[in-house]
């Protein structure tokens, strides 16, 4: 697929360079706003800029959001685990609607989802025979 390859293309080079220039410009602008005193900026004519309080507050907000993101992700993970009485621990729509292929001699059997009763019987009821075979 020509459209989806990760190879370098002229358009991608242009995007990258524009992003590089704008991120450097944004960073220099942030430093200028944070360090140059208000009076100098006003004398240059730039009066309607946000309070300098935000130059410190926004990075702190961002870092706290990242830390809370760790805790939140863990919590969302635990909340979306199926409870023990859910049918999703046993089967789902794909397994219910699967098609059964006929058995062919000397061929590898087709892949299918084995019902849990059969699996249980094999594991827990017939242990004596398995041990004697070994």
């Amino acid at each position, binding site marked *: 697929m020509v459209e989806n390859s990760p190879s370098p293309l002229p358009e991608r080079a242009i995007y990258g360079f524009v992003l590089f220039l704008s991120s450097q410009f944004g960073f220099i602008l942030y430093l200028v706003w944070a360090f140059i005193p208000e009076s100098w900026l006003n004398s240059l004519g730039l009066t309607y800029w946000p309070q300098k309080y935000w130059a410190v507050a926004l990075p702190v907000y961002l870092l706290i959001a990242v830390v809370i993101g760790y805790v939140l992700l863990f919590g969302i993970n635990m909340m979306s685990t199926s409870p023990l009485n859910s*049918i999703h*621990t*046993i089967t789902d729509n794909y397994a219910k609607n699967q098609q059964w292929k006929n058995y062919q001699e000397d061929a590898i059997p087709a892949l299918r989802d084995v019902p849990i*009763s059969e699996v249980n019987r094999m594991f827990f009821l017939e242990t004596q025979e398995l041990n004697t075979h070994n």
Partner: protein
Amino acid sequence: MEDEKSFSDICGGRVVLRRRYYSPYCREFGLSSARLSLRSLTAVTCAVWLAAYGLFTLCENSMILSAAIFITIIGLLGYLHFVKIDQETLLIIDSLGIQMTSSYASGKESTTFIEMDKVKDVIINEAIYMQKVIYYLCILLKDPGKPHEISQVVPVFQSAKPRLDCLIEVYRSCQEILAHQKATSTSP
């Protein structure tokens, strides 16, 4: 026929499985967990009272101390009556159904009964519980109209949570009864 055997639960504590065979195809399995220990009760009470005393030295309001005593008493009674399950029993009667009983530490008992028509199978399933993967015994229910579909999953022994060796014993016993029930029910 009656016997008792000691197993361990998923946290390493001790549970006792008591089996009673009332008749060849009517069996009862009782799982008792350890009773509320004096050590944990003392620890919780001391922690709550020390915290209350700390708060009291901070704000000099003596209502905090009486409130702490009240909370401890009410909390203990509520815990014994609503949370602490001492024994869980599973009674299987061939051709009738399955009955699950939980008896709480305060003496309260809660019972659930499932008719044999609704029971599809009794299996040992594995699932993720908190940060572990545990084995637990559950009863699969079917809708009488659609006998090949599982309509509901009912886990048993939810508060005792025994490990696999105990579950295998109960599973084998239940499968004997269910096999006999299917054999006798298909012949009209």
